[in-house]
């Protein structure tokens, strides 16, 4: 990117640094450093709309279902963010997730009877290897990841079809293992739900308060206290609501309560990935490479090494998504729509606030974007709109998100 500067700029720095200034906050939002406010408002608007239209949207059973439904979008979105940060993309994730899931299902099936503790890790190794292969080709031959992963997309679908058909069970294999089945369909007990959510909320609040305190102690000032307090209050309220939702009985025939296992798994992946991106050198370097590859190289960063790492972390996340996918559908069939899933994954990341141009995005963006897609999916089904309308609605949300991304990008460069 050429940096063109004009001579008419004012010598004074634009006052975007002080976070107390309301105008500065508005400016930050315009420059794409907005945090999560726009997407949270959008999500709230969707929820209100569907609740008004259906009056059952906010029922505990539907909300729980919504979270489980969104899991695949959330995890694939996080997998995609590892690469979007670099300005790369992986189109093969949809079928990589299918292949990983298929490997797990087949190995624990009655044909092979592998124990789950071997089959599940092997499925993850398969998806990591497939991403590593993409990375190798992209780096070794200096090809755009778009094209390489397009080829992988076709190749992985082929491999997946081959191994499923080889089972001789008519194009689908069902889950015949309790552990794999319970990944999504099992629930924590109500007490465990309480403990887990409260512990997670308390830990998060503690970390936020401690970070603030360290800053203040070192004399650097920091965020105004009310921002942190507001965040913690919101966290507390939403945790409480979630506990009540998950612990309400959601079956008319039996007593089904507790948080589905899928949600702690999502949160765990989110926490680890966020830690790597925000707190380690490796994460910092991914942002640097995505922002200015040449600058990163001149700073002594081994660019290819970190690109490989990003691809493999993406593969790992894809594998976890695959396991949850087959668990939720209690099997794998040749009919999996890997193409649609990968597009939803990119959409989730971008709707959430990650940039397609590289260098900007957080893992939480995939979670919120995935929830938006899940909400549209879920709500449209509730008001009996057909697939055609659902696709069009998702398309409009995605377009809105990329336009906002593009405008934010322009906003952040014209101030120079």
């Amino acid at each position: 990117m050429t940096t063109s500067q004009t001579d008419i700029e004012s010598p004074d720095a634009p006052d975007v640094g002080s976070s107390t200034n309301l105008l500065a906050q508005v400016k930050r939002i315009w420059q794409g450093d907005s945090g999560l406010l726009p997407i949270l408002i959008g999500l709230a608007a969707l929820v209100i709309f569907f609740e008004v239209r259906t009056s059952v949207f906010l029922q505990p059973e539907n909300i729980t279902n919504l979270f489980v439904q969104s899991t695949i979008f959330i995890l694939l979105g996080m997998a995609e963010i590892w690469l979007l940060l670099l300005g790369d993309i992986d189109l093969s994730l949809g079928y990589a997730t299918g292949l990983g899931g298929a490997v797990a299902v087949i190995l624990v099936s009655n044909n092979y009877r592998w124990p789950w503790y071997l089959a599940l890790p092997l499925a993850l190794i398969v998806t990591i290897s497939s991403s590593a292969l993409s990375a190798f080709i992209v780096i070794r031959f200096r090809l755009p990841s778009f094209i390489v992963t397009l080829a992988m997309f076709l190749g992985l679908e082929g491999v997946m079809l081959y191994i499923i058909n080889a089972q001789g069970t008519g194009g689908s294999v069902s889950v015949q293992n309790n552990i794999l089945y319970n990944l999504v369909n099992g629930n924590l007990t109500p007490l465990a739900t309480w403990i887990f959510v409260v512990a997670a909320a308390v830990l998060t609040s503690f970390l936020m308060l401690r970070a603030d305190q360290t800053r203040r102690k070192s004399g650097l000032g920091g965020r105004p206290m009310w921002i942190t307090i507001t965040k913690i209050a919101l966290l507390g309220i939403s945790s409480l609501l979630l506990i009540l939702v998950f612990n309400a009985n959601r079956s008319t025939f039996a007593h089904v309560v507790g948080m589905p296992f899928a949600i702690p798994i999502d949160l765990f992946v989110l926490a680890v990935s966020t830690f790597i991106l925000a707190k380690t050198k490796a994460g910092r370097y991914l942002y640097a490479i995505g922002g200015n590859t040449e600058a990163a190289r001149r700073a002594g960063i081994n660019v290819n090494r970190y690109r490989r790492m990003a691809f493999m972390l993406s593969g790992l996340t894809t594998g976890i998504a695959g396991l949850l996918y087959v668990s939720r559908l209690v099997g794998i069939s040749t009919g999996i729509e890997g193409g649609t899933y990968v597009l939803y994954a990119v959409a989730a990341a971008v709707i959430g606030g990650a940039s397609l141009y590289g260098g900007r995005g957080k893992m939480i963006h995939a979670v919120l974007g995935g929830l938006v897609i899940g909400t549209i999916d879920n709500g449209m089904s509730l008001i009996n709109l057909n697939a055609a309308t659902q696709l069009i609605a998702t398309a409009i949300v995605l377009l809105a998100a990329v336009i906002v991304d593009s405008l934010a990008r322009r906003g952040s460069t014209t101030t120079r």
Partner: protein
Amino acid sequence: MSSAPELPNVSTPPTGPSIAGNSGAEVFDFEHLLSMRDIAKNFGAVQALRHVDIDIPAGQVTALIGDNGAGKSTLIKTISGIWAPSAGQIFWKGKEVHIHTPHAATDLGIATVYQDLALCDNLDIVQNMYLGMEITRFGILDEIQMELTTLKVLSDLSVSTVSSVRQLVGSLSGGQRQAVAVARAVMRDSELVILDEPTAALGVSQTKQVLALIRTLAARGIAVLVISHNLNEVFSVADRIAVMRLGTLVSQGPVANYDTSSAVELITTGESDRVPSTFSSAQ
């Protein structure tokens, strides 16, 4: 190319015991921080540099001037390890060194700020300053320590125009970006900072800020080598001037030995009657 005058080797080699044919293992008193002797660089049949002798003293600003294609960029890339010279010797603090990689240059204490500045717009000032050399505690980035040091380095350099070191570099003005790039070099304990046309894209007040920053560097004992096309700027900021033409260094010396018209003559013809002959290549 053959029209250029054959150069006698006028400059004296660095002081000290016999240097000729030495492995460069011993260290001796040095007069200049960096000295280059008889440097040549060929790209196939093209001779980009021929018989270049240049001395860069510590604590002074040396301006490298010359027309487009005179070899200025080739020379600084040789110093900063982008490529090795085809022939000749480089002395760093009086000791012969071989700078074959950018890393080797950085290790010696040579930092080059190219025109593109090599900053990441999507990272903030602190993150850019520490890129590639982050401070960590138990593997976790120590943001507080990095921010404190950044604040100190910027205030040492009297860079006061940035309102927050946590603002994204993409939102900074051209002069501020230049300042961040220079501060980055200083923070890496560089003893020689090379600036490639630092003011080329800047307005009047921003240029002033950058020139002031260059003087601050020299006052701190850092050697500065600055490429510039703007002679007014050169005469306002430089202690020494080195003139290149057609791949050779035609003249170098204290700024007092030159004026604008003699500098222009040297740039365009390689000769000037009004420059003391010891420093000029004029025969």
